[in-house]
């Protein structure tokens, strides 16, 4: 890679990581002027920066507000770059459905999980918070989602997740979708008990786990 190109990619990444929207947008425009492939700029620049921010969150250097700002910078950069991606028949992206189960309105964590999936190239359908159990099943069916993520921070609403999985079974679509659960009171053994495929303790790990789950099947449905 050319020195100049390297530099621009590097600034894209640090713009996102350092919550610097202005720098990110400038670097994105420079990338276009210098004919850097926008897909490269997104992957090696913007998304790499978001990944670094995620690592800072894991080590408690960043908290929720910082990650939200990184994502603002990321989206500002994407706004500049995405219109210039030549639409070659791109590989289908993994469709996933996410939401906070009924009775619970804690959605800060869910929003971070959603963000990390989006920035990892997943096609995310967000049902929001306090989501009726049937709505999860209906949506998975409707969009033929490959991944379902359910979140809750309250132990009083955890059981709703088990009921969603039961409903998926009743509808005969349990085998078509990988189910991941997460949130404060949950752990791996709870996930196992209710028959979920995966659990993760934070948003960064969630994406890693999802990738593993999706590749462990026969067909490759990764983005």
């Amino acid at each position, binding site marked *: 890679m050319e020195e100049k190109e390297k530099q621009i990619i590097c600034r894209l990444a640090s713009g996102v990581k350092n*919550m610097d929207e202005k720098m990110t947008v400038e670097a994105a425009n420079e990338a276009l002027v210098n004919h850097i492939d926008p897909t490269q700029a997104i992957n090696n620049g913007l998304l790499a920066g978001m990944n670094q921010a995620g690592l800072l969150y894991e080590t408690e250097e*960043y*908290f*929720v*507000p*910082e990650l*939200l*700002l990184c994502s*603002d910078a990321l989206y500002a950069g994407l706004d500049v770059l995405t219109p210039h991606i030549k639409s070659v028949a791109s590989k289908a992206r993994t469709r996933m459905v996410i939401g906070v189960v009924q*009775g619970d*309105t804690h*959605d*800060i964590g869910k*929003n971070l999980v959603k963000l990390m999936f989006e920035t990892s190239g997943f096609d995310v359908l967000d049902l929001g918070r*306090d989501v009726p159990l049937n709505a999860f099943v209906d949506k998975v069916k409707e969009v033929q989602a490959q991944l379902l993520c359910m979140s809750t921070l*309250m*132990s*009083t609403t955890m059981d709703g997740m088990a009921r969603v999985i039961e409903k998926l079974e009743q509808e005969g679509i349990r085998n078509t979708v990988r189910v991941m659960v997460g949130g404060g*009171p949950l752990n791996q053994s709870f996930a196992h008990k209710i028959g979920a495929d995966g659990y993760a303790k934070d948003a960064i790990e969630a994406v890693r786990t999802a990738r593993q789950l999706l590749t462990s099947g026969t067909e490759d449905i990764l983005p």
Partner: protein
Amino acid sequence: MHKDDQMTPKERSTALAMGKTVDRMPVSVICLGPAGQLLNMSYREAYASAENRAANQIKAYELFGFDILNLIYSLHALAISMGARIEEPDEGPAIIVEHPLSSLDDLSMLNLEDVSFKRDTIARMVVEAHKIIEDKIGVEIGVETSLPGPITAAAGIVGPAVFLNGLLKKPEKVHQLLEFCSDAIINIARHFIDANLQVGLADPMASGSVISKTLYDTFALPYTQKIVNACKAYKAVGVGYHVCGNTTKLLESMAQTGVDGIGIDNLVDMAAAKERIGHKVALAGNVPPVDLVCYGNAQTIDFSIKECFRKTWDSPKGYTLTTGCDLPVNTPIENIYAYMKSARYYAKYPIDPERFN
């Protein structure tokens, strides 16, 4: 007086204040979630009127005999007074469906009149409920109530996502909103103090699980200090404080707010809390409400209470055993009995550290 005690909570605290001997140390449980169960009705009904609010706390005192009652107010009070759209589930506190403001850009409509005591139905219910309790058992036990802390109140008005984003992007706007919230909280707190309620602040959104220490120090600390100072200037009262979740890195800052006592949630080690801030404030905590009191059994509860006492019984400014946070709605009542049984055992005077070693 509860059958298992020799003194009423008020006799106990008066004796302790005078350095006299007591039957046991004060103990507490945050018993707001199970209110409906105590009255054989839904959570929603148990909080629907001043009469029911009083009845559930009187019942809790009768059954368990802990040392302080708590008349729940609402974390969302300001937002509700300002016309937030809420949903009230049968089994749990109100949920904000639509926040009164959707951005921080235009704060010109903020008006203290809209969030005054007069407009605040829940605050008025709390004061009324307190009158009922005072009449019935006021000689025996005191009542406290928790106001929302500034961060939680502000996030309720614009919504958590907009608020958290604003902390870094629009700090002046956030300060303006926090100024407003703290003024509103002070106004309501004065009414509670006039009614002879003990006051505290609860600020779950200021949790170390959500924001960094730097942001806490910049945004939570000054406005919390302001509220605490105003309460104390109004009348010589003690002020309590609770922040949910993991506040380990915030402990010193929380003590700096000027409050007299801090309720520590179960993600924090009580030994660390004692060592770092026990010489500055009274401590309360921190039996895990969900994992142990709700989903545990008599043994696990006993183990946890013993550990709390072992770590904190000699905290320099005082210690009260309590739960880390509120008990879930569906907490089995037997488990609260089990909690009180162990609590009475370890709290018995004279304290013998051998009991919990």
